[in-house]
């Protein structure tokens, strides 16, 4: 189900790249790294202004009714710019989860998610597990109790989809965060607004429980993984290009360093990783809601994470000393590569999920 982008999609890709390029400001992003609790408001204003927050919300709820393909293109442009408030991805997770909600709940949140007025987070992980079985956070009588560590966007989100235990079964619930206590996390990629959330009788609504909740949670993670894969591809490709340009320009021993095979081949290998990841990301986005989506999302996640981590390592190496400086800013990508690698579940989780899909869960 690989696709060739249509004209509207090409336009979204072009326009999001153009806008983000015009508003790029490395100093602003570097500053964010040194502050806990701040985020890239300029990016978020842009996202609202450009309608990116509305992209994947159903038309009936004030959205544009588009999906993973289009959101992926915006994410790719954001990845290239290491732009992005973290909730572009998690908002989509919440939109997906709300498909299981009643009309009233949908009407309450979806229009405001579309306008960017409300920000959503996804709080699944506990300990180092992205989808703990069973979860320690519990839901009963409309109240949520327990602790979720390192929730992306957790510091500012208004609502969260939470993976919880309910009557001995797993459940997906929607929690309001107004009164929830949040502990900001000093992190290596501060703009992601990581926070530990402590739910104490927090008001929440049950969306799904039992096996249905598990399927929906996996689908939600897969959707976020595909958006993130696009963001990772954007980042990896940007690093490939910046390293390529540097290799063509910088001279050592009387010739551009790009004439040395160690550099040429490193970049050619990186090109391969980027193109494989891109192809997997597009393929997965086009399969949303269809059989095979989970496996395709896993393949996209694995190849995009490998591409971005490798790009971060290799682009710095090609740059030599200048690549290691704070002002040079390559570490913006390096840090983002690692935070994105963790946010949607680590490689071990996705490898196992993919093998279960290929070999049968009994395996």
């Amino acid at each position, binding site marked *: 189900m690989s696709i060739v982008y249509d004209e509207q999609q090409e336009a979204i890709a072009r326009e999001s790249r153009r806008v983000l390029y015009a508003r790029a400001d490395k100093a602003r992003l570097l500053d964010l790294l040194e502050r806990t609790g701040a985020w890239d408001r300029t990016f978020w204003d842009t996202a609202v202004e450009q309608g990116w927050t509305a992209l994947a919300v159903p038309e009936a709820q004030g959205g544009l009714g588009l999906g993973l393909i289009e959101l992926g293109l915006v994410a790719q442009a954001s990845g290239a710019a290491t732009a992005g408030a973290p909730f572009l991805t998690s908002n989509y997770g919440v939109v997906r989860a709300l498909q299981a909600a009643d009309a009233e709940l949908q009407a309450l949140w979806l229009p405001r998610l579309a306008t960017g007025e409300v920000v959503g987070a996804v709080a699944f992980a506990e300990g180092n597990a992205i989808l703990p079985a069973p979860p320690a956070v519990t839901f009963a009588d409309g109240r949520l109790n327990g602790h979720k560590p390192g929730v992306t966007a957790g510091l500012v989100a208004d609502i969260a989809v939470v993976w919880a235990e309910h009557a001995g079964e797993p459940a997906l619930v929607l929690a309001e965060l107004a009164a929830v206590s949040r502990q900001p996390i000093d992190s290596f990629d501060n703009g992601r607004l990581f926070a530990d959330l402590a739910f104490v009788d927090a008001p929440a609504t049950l969306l799904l429980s039992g096996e249905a909740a598990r399927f929906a949670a996996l689908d939600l993670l897969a959707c976020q993984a595909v958006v993130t894969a696009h963001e990772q591809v954007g980042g990896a490709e940007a690093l490939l290009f910046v390293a*390529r340009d540097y290799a063509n320009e910088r001279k050592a021993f009387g010739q551009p360093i790009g004439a040395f095979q160690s550099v040429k081949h490193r*970049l050619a290998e990186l*090109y391969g990783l980027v193109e494989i*990841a891109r192809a997997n990301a*597009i393929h997965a986005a086009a399969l949303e809601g269809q059989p095979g989506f989970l496996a395709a999302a896993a393949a996209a996640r694995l190849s995009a994470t490998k591409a971005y981590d490798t790009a971060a390592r290799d682009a710095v190496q090609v740059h030599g000393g200048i690549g290691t400086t704070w002002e040079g800013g390559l570490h913006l990508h390096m840090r983002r590569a690692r935070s994105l690698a963790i946010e949607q579940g680590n490689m071990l989780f996705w*490898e196992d999920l993919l*093998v279960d899909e290929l*070999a049968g869960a009994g395996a």
Partner: protein
Amino acid sequence: MSEIEAYRQKARAWLQSVAPTYGRDALQGLSEAEHLAAGRAYQRAKFAAGFAGIHWDPELGGQGLTPLHKVVFEQEEMGFGMPIAYFGVSLGISVPIVLRFAQDRAWARERAIAALSGDEIWCQLFSEPSGGSDLAGLRTKVETEGNGWKLNGQKLWTTFAQHSDYGVIIARNDPKALKHKGLTFFWLDMKAQGVTVRPIKLAAAGHDHVNEVFFDDVRLDDGQRLSPVGGGFATAMATLMIERYSASDPAGFGPTTATFVELAKASEVNGRPAIQDGRIRSAIARSHAMRMGLEAITTRAMRMMAAGMEPGPEGSLNKLVSVRSRQKLSELAIDLMGQLGLAWDPLASSKDDWVASWLAAPTGRIAGGADEMLLNTIAEKILGLPQDHRPDKGVPFDQIPA
């Protein structure tokens, strides 16, 4: 896509109907001569059923369909293990180049039809002992003699030369010219006086398929010339462009991921099911993700071709990435089989057997462009990085130190 999908169905149905006669199982244990005969018979059956020369001009025996139709047929054909190897170079490279450049059109058409129907086989005489990756460094020489030419020298790695009726060849007509300049392109009768073919035994499994070919005062008519005198390098480069659209095998011409999963399901690692071992799971997941990506690249390229667009250059990744990965996956499979994997049949197929796949992988990483050359090409042509230093540039051929 529905017309293409229908074509795919039709192709699959026909392939299934002939698989009992020509497919993998039917070929088990055949001698070299029997295998070749089966290949010719299968090619004849393809021609009769309208599946040969799918994207060629009907004037030349083709079907007049698009390259996409050809790729679709090849994708379907791949799984059956048909004896198609003999015709890859012949129909993929040599005959098309003859059809494009031969001076006698009627003769060329005759050859095309004979090749499509499996009666005649062509080889391509490019590589030489002195240079595998460095095509332009070739030393086989051609000199004018009367109103024709005289050929002397040696070619190496010539695929199926031992079964070929004709070949296309590039030789040096002027050693005083720059390396790339003094070359001329011809076709050649492989049964002509002075041509000697000697098969090369490879380390890999299976029947011999590459050869050394020696030329001892072989006489060529000027009518056999396929390029301007001294203009052969451009023609050789053109041959490399002819086969842009072929089905690729994301498994790198080795066993499928499903084959590996089956092995893992049947094996244990230190007393636990191998399919539950993280190392094995990682290998499966990583191989699958990489192969899915290569497959998605091919599918997207086909969709672009179907829409009249030019596919991107990422199609060039396939062999580089897939064969190298297959080599390591095959090693892991051998490890996993342990003492049970020591038994081995030297005629086993690389598509099914892990040891055969592992033994043949080095050939795959070298033939048709070594890994290092492919990486250079990607770096230079796609990414725009500088060429390597080339001491042979701008120097007459006979002044380059040997």
